[in-house]
C-alpha cells in the first residue's frame, strides 16, 4: 500500500523509478542493521549454547552456532515434570489474570467516560492517585499476608489485577467513539449494560486486544510477586521463578566450585552447562512464537496511551 503510493508520483512524471539504494541509504541501513542484529544475537548465542555439549561450552568454543550438537538439555527439561507443570500453571495464571483484569478495566473505564455520572471526578481521582503514590512493597506484602493469600495462586492474580495506565488507554479510546451511537442505542431502549456490551465493546476490539496483550505479557514476565508471595509451595511457582532458581543454582555451584577448587569436576557433571541456556529458551519460546503476530497491537497501544498519558 505505502510502496504503491510512493511509486505513483515518479511514474506520473514519467521518469524511470530511481533505486532507493543510494550510498547514504546503504550506510543508514547498515547502521540500523547493526542495532537490530544486536537485539537478536544474544538469542542466537543462548540457543547455540543450549544445543552444545558441555565440554564445548566450558572451552568457550560456542559463539553463534552449536558445537558438538546435542539435545540432552531439552530432554532433561521435558522430562522434568515440575517444569512442565510450571509451564501449564503459568499459562493458567496468565489466562485467569488477564480475564479478570480486562473485566475490571472495562467496568472502570466505561462509567468514567460518562460526563453525566455523579462523582465521576472522585472515582477518577481514586484511580489516578494510585499511579503516583502507593503503600510500598512491604505494606503490599503484609496486606497479602493479612488477606491469607500467601502461597496461593490468588496472590499472583488479585493484587495487580487493575492497571490504571491501561484503564486510561481504554478510557481515551471509549471517549473517542462517537457518542451519537450511545444516544441511538438508548432511544432503542438499551440500558447502560447493553450499550456497553453491544456498542462499545464490539467497536473497541482492537484496543481491547492491545490491553489483553499488555496484561498477558506483563503477567507472563512478572517475577517479583512470585518471589514475594510464593514462599514455600513449589507447585505454585510460575515459570519466571523457576527460571530464576535454575539460574541461581547453577551460578552458585559455579561460584562454589571456583572458590573451593576441588570438587569442581563433580559439580560440573551434576549441573550440565547447557541446562541453563535451554531453560532460558524454553521460557522465552512462548513469547517468541506469538510476538511477531501481536507486535503491531502493542505499538498502537503505546501511541494511544501517549495521547492522554
Amino acid at each position, binding site marked *: 500500500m*505505502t*510502496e504503491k503510493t510512493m511509486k505513483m508520483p515518479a511514474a506520473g512524471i514519467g521518469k524511470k523509478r530511481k533505486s*532507493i*539504494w543510494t550510498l*547514504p*541509504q546503504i550506510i*543508514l541501513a547498515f547502521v540500523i542493521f547493526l*542495532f*537490530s542484529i544486536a*537485539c*537478536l544475537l*544474544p538469542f542466537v548465542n*543462548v540457543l547455540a*549454547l543450549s544445543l552444545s555439549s558441555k565440554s564445548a561450552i566450558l572451552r*568457550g568454543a*560456542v*559463539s553463534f552456532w552449536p558445537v558438538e550438537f546435542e539435545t540432552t538439555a531439552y530432554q532433561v527439561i521435558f522430562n522434568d515434570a515440575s517444569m512442565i507443570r510450571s509451564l501449564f500453571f503459568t499459562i493458567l495464571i496468565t489466562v485467569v489474570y488477564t480475564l479478570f483484569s480486562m473485566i475490571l478495566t472495562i*467496568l472502570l473505564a466505561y*462509567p468514567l467516560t460518562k460526563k453525566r*455520572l*455523579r462523582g465521576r471526578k472522585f472515582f477518577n481521582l*481514586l*484511580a*489516578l492517585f*494510585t499511579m*503516583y*503514590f*502507593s*503503600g*510500598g*512493597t*512491604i*505494606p*503490599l506484602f*503484609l496486606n497479602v499476608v493479612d488477606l491469607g493469600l500467601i502461597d496461593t495462586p490468588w496472590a499472583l492474580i488479585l493484587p495487580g489485577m487493575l492497571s490504571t495506565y491501561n484503564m486510561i488507554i481504554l478510557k481515551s479510546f471509549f471517549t473517542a467513539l462517537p457518542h451519537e451511537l450511545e444516544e441511538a442505542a*438508548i432511544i432503542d*431502549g438499551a440500558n*447502560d*449494560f447493553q450499550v456497553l456490551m453491544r456498542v462499545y465493546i464490539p467497536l473497541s476490539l482492537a484496543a481491547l486486544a492491545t490491553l489483553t496483550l499488555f496484561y498477558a*505479557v506483563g503477567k*507472563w*514476565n*512478572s*517475577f*517479583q510477586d512470585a518471589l514475594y508471595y510464593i514462599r514455600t509451595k513449589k507447585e505454585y511457582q510460575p515459570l*519466571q521463578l523457576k*527460571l530464576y532458581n535454575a*539460574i541461581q543454582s547453577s*551460578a552458585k555451584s559455579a561460584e562454589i566450585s571456583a572458590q573451593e577448587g576441588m570438587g569442581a569436576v563433580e559439580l560440573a557433571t551434576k549441573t550440565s*552447562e547447557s541446562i*541453563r541456556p535451554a531453560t*532460558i529458551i524454553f521460557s*522465552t519460546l512462548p*513469547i517468541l512464537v506469538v510476538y*511477531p503476530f501481536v*507486535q503491531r497491537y*502493542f505499538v498502537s497501544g*503505546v*501511541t494511544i496511551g*501517549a495521547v492522554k498519558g
Partner: protein
Amino acid sequence: MIQKVQEYTRRVFMTAGALPRKKVRTKWFARDWRLYLMLVLPVAFYLIFCYKPMLGIMIAFQKYNPVKGMWGSQFIGLKNFTDVMRLSDFKPALFNTLWLNFLGLLAGFPVPIILAIMLNELKAIRFKKVSQTLLYLPHFLSWIIIGGMVLQIFAPKTGVINALLLKWGWIDKSIPFLTDGPHWQFTYTLVGVWQSMGWGTILYLSAITGINMELFEAAKIDGANKMQQIWHVTLPGIRSTIAVLLILSVGQMMNISFDRPFILGNPQVRDYGDVLSTFVYRIGIEKAQYARATAIGLFQSLVGLILISTANFTIKKLGEEGIW
C-alpha cells in the same frame, strides 16, 4: 413500553437546568445505578489492594509486632527512619539508585531519538519493518530471561564476548563484566539501553509523523541538505516530546525497578549494585524487619512524589500538557 422508553431518554438527555432541581436530585441514581454497579468491583479492588496498604504505612512509625498487628503495635515516632539512616547499607543503596538511574538516562536517553530519526529516514519499507520487529523484541522479555542471557554472554571465559575477544587477541585476560563493581555498572547500563532503545523509538516516530510535510518541502527548496533538514525541521518538531520525556525521566530518578538489579546483582558487587528496591527486599522479606523496610519505602515514595510533581510543574511551565 414506548412511554417507558420516552421517560428514560428524557431522563438521560434532559439537562439539569430544564428539570426542577429537586426532581433531578432524586432521579440521578435511578438513571445511573447500572454505572455505579459497574464501578463496585474496580472500586473494591482499589480499596483492598491499593488504599488498605496505604494505611499500612503507619507501621513505619511503630515498633511493629506482627502478632499485635498494626492497630496494636506501639508508636515510636521517627525512630525507624533514624535507625535506617544509620544502617551502613542505606547510603550506598540510595547513592546507587540515583547513580544507576543517572547513567541509564545519560546513555539511554539519546539512543531512541537517534534511532527514530534514522528509521524515519530509511526508505526501504520492508527492511524497516523487520528491523523494528527485532528492535522491539527485548522489551517483551522478562528481566529474568534477560538476566539469564546476560549471565551467559558476559561470563568470564565461557561467555561469548570474553571468548571472542580472547580469541581475536584484543584482550589478554577476560573482562570481569559481572564481578567488578564499575564494570558491573557498565554492564547494567548497557543492558538497560539494549532492552529499551527500540521500544523508546515508538513515541518519537509517531511525533515525527506528526510534523507538517510542507516544512520539509520548504527546507528542501531553500537548499537544505538531509542533515540540515534533520537539524532544523525534524529535531525542532519533536522537541516538546523530548522535553516531556526527559523531565519525566528525571522525575523518576528515585524509582528503580526490582527485577533488573536483583537478577543482575551478585554478592561480589553488592557495594555497587545494591539499590533501594533490593535493599527493601533484603531488610523486609529476608530479615523480616517490616517496620524499617516500610520506612525506606515511604521515604522513597515521598521523595519520588516530590520529584514527579516538580517534573509535572516544569512541563506545564514550558507550556506543554502535564501528566495531571
